[in-house]
């Protein structure tokens, strides 16, 4: 029975990582850039929906929408101001700028909302957890909705990327930036769109994560950001299904290592698994093998 509870909490934690990892993978896919500030966009999303529900009195779902809109705008502005000037100058410079943006977001949040941690009222406050198997197994609404949201987002995103014109444009730009421009695709628009979607999803992930683990502080986004980034690479950076699978597996490993091996070393075990997978498959689970033509 414990196995089932662990599996469910593993899946729900994994779903959170997966949704965040989607943001990392899409941004990396299109502009070969590791957006370290992505973790903090989650935190901003969390604060936004917290403000909406607590002070503006909107209901949870409306607050989520507002948070998504704000995060989308935030994502686009970050790309426009911080990353566009450095496009094409090699990934190291952009990496450091992303880290600068991450510190910036954390400190802005600290100044605006102060250092006191806030308790996030879960989106599914009213709903009752489902007691199955004679009360032994309790499944919280947060877990169910997180897993569902992850699946829905996955389907919508795959459809968007494969079917719609904008989606194809994004894939074209991620395949070959130069050629895409020649084909008349507005690269800047595609990249902004990617950041927009990535940040919007980050808001969703933020709200879902905080519904399950309600402590909200300016530094809340840091650790999940790193874990999700690991999940994105685990699944093969650049591949959308890879991010999903990578996130889920990472979540399950984390929960199971805590439950069965040792809570002290759970982080170490998660990262050790990542290294083992990369040993076996150097470009992650679904990453495309880049072979150098001699």
């Amino acid at each position: 029975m414990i196995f089932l509870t662990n599996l469910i909490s593993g899946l729900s934690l994994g779903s959170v990582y997966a949704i965040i990892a989607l943001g990392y993978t899409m941004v990396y896919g299109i502009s070969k850039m590791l957006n370290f500030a992505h973790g903090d966009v989650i935190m901003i999303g969390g604060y936004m929906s917290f403000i909406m529900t607590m002070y503006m009195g909107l209901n949870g779902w409306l607050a989520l929408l507002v948070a998504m809109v704000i995060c989308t705008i935030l994502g686009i502005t970050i790309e426009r101001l911080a990353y566009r000037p450095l496009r094409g100058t090699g990934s190291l410079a952009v990496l450091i700028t992303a880290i600068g943006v991450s510190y910036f977001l954390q400190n802005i949040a600290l100044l605006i909302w102060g250092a006191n941690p806030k308790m996030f009222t879960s989106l599914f406050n009213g709903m009752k957890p489902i007691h199955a198997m004679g009360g032994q197994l309790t499944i919280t609404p947060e877990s169910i909705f997180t897993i569902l949201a992850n699946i829905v987002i996955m389907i919508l995103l795959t459809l968007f990327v494969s079917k719609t014109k904008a989606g194809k444009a994004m894939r074209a730009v991620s395949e070959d930036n130069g050629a895409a421009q020649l084909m008349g695709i507005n690269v800047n628009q595609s990249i902004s769109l990617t950041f927009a979607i990535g940040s919007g999803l980050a808001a969703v992930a933020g709200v879902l994560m905080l519904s399950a683990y309600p402590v909200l502080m300016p530094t809340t986004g840091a650790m999940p950001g790193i874990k999700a980034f690991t999940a994105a690479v685990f699944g093969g950076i650049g591949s959308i299904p890879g991010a999903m699978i990578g996130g889920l597996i990472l979540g399950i490993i984390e929960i199971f290592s805590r439950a069965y091996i040792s809570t002290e070393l759970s982080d170490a075990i998660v990262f050790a698994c990542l290294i083992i997978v990369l040993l076996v498959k150097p470009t992650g689970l679904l990453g495309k093998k880049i072979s150098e033509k001699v």
Partner: protein
Amino acid sequence: MKKNWKKAVVVAVSCMMVFMLAACGGGGGSSDAGENVLKMGCTGPLTGPAAIYGNAVKNGGQIAVDEINAANPDGVQVAWQVEDDEADGEKAVNAYNKLMDDGMQVFVGSVTSGACVAVAEKTNADRVFELTPSASQAAVTEGKDNVFQLCFRDPDQGTISADYIVENFPDAKVGVIYNNASDYSAGIYDGFKKEMDAKGVEIVAVEAFADDANTDFQAQLNSMKNAGADFVFLPNYYTPVSNILVQADKMGYAPTFFGCDGVDGILTLEGFDTSLAEGVYLLTPFTASAEDEKTQNFVKAYMDAYGEEPNQFAADAYDCVYACYNAFKETGLETSASAADICEAMVAQFAGGFSYEGLTAANAMKWQATGEVDKMPAVYVIEGGKYVEK
């Protein structure tokens, strides 16, 4: 390589500028002998994950300083300067050095243990009197005569909690969830375990969690539930504790929780459903809802100034400032005295039976020569959203 020369020139010029800035910054060392001001300094985390504690100490101290300055306009005034150390040893030493450059005479800090131990060694070397409001690690005062603690030492909290639990819950099956990346939490657990072993009471289950408060506690709570622990000891700060309470409630697991002074402040947590904290025991020297008149004016003053209830860190800072002020007055020194002279005098006071009646202790506080404080914490339980003394 042409372009590198240009970069070198830019970088070298800015390097000179920064040196100047830092060097002159360090110039103003002499304390302005004119006014009658005792300069108190403190370092604490004003940014980063532990920012809540640094700011609480800063505000608490400010309240006390304003009260003192108002109370005796022509007497000894107090200056209060707090520098950010991000709860990190290296930055704390930098912050301390900045305070020394600004002519600090008495050091009321650091806020967190890790930073405080690093700074304590410097204050000992520079012979500056140090009274830390909240750095509760044993190593803070070890082997240093000039460092005193206003708060309990971690192991003591562990021992006192253990004694209390064994005495009042003899048949309880005790489990522990502690933060193995925080020296405060690990320190209390250390003392707790030693005392429980000494008393021969077996701890049913021990689980740890990683540093960030916002993680999944299902695994830890499950292992408590399986071990049949009906009593869980949580030597943690209130952010992870609130998370644990929420997740335990969701799991339908309701043991009695027992926390230490770190749990204080959980009721002021914005958006926290205080009903979840019902029946939680906590060992704390201060609570904002205590009825005594001293606490009430402090709470009122704090509420007016900062719009939120003070937590235990703020109260500690308040007491520290007053304790230093009173002790300084008793030494009869002039405020123009050097930090070292003040230090010798204050050490004599504190080690020589100086006592102070403050917010954070039922009885009058006394200090031992080793720097430890003798004060009895009260055990409270949260009932009806209020702390009820047990």
